[in-house]
């Protein structure tokens, strides 16, 4: 799997962890018209921030599939038409490597994928389902 695909799947997983922490606020912030931002540090400490608030949690589990240790990451999101969310991400890796990507995804599809059977099964197994990874890859505009 290319690094670009790994990064896109990681973004989806980070949103999934935020959703699992607080379904209400994550759904509202992602659907809101304002811009918002997700930042991650080397320890996996993750912040989802909007204009007058932020949610912090440990998103380390979402970084496991990256294959390289990150120094930090920053993803900004902007609402497009209907359920479409546009994002721009910068991931900095240990060893002076970095990557910037942009893309878009359908938020409803992502939320449904996470509250669906596939997501629950993946969580119950505490290991990622290959089919679930494929589903995230498809949703994240690959």
């Amino acid at each position, binding site marked *: 799997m290319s690094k670009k695909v790994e990064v896109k799947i990681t973004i989806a997983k980070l949103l999934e962890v935020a959703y699992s*922490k*607080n379904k*209400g*606020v994550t759904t*509202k*912030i992602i*659907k*809101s*018209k304002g811009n918002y*931002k997700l*930042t991650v540090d080397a320890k996996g400490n993750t*912040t989802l*921030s*909007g*204009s*007058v*608030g*932020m*949610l*912090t*949690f*440990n998103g380390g589990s979402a970084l496991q599939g990256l294959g390289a240790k990150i120094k930090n990451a920053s993803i900004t999101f902007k609402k497009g038409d209907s359920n479409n969310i546009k994002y721009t991400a910068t991931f900095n890796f240990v060893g002076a490597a970095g990557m910037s990507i942009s893309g878009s995804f359908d938020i409803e599809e992502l939320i449904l994928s996470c509250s669906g059977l596939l997501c629950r099964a993946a969580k119950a197994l505490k290991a990622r389902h290959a089919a679930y990874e494929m589903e995230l890859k498809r949703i994240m505009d690959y």
Partner: protein
Amino acid sequence: MKKLLIFSLLGFIASCTNMVENNISPYQQYKKFLTSLKVKDYEDALHMLSPDNQARFHKDKADESFNDFFPFFSSVGSVVVKEVRYYENNKAEKSCLTISGYNKEGDPTSLNFELLNIDGYWKLNYVHMAYHETKNEFPNKATCPVIP
């Protein structure tokens, strides 16, 4: 003379009312805010936010409701459901309020608020919702949110 006495009395009552209002602590203001959200009195909830937040809502809300426009503030009731402790750090112009406890799933969580003193009333300006790994991460003092 009678009129003067009535006006003086009314003035005294008004000042007493203000004193009571001014004595609402940041924590009590948070509790009032939760009640407003619970009974869906969003006008009252909006009144408890800082003037900047209120102005931004009136200017930019378009077709968005209070819930949609303030995803964080409108969701504070879901973060700390079982309260364990709280701390306040009040200064003249600003207060920081930290409430720790558990959400309905039993995960350890904290809320860190920044409140501004606006003409004697504490108004909510910013909220940080923290999801901890263990209860050992509960703050042991009022922690001001670090606004990005």
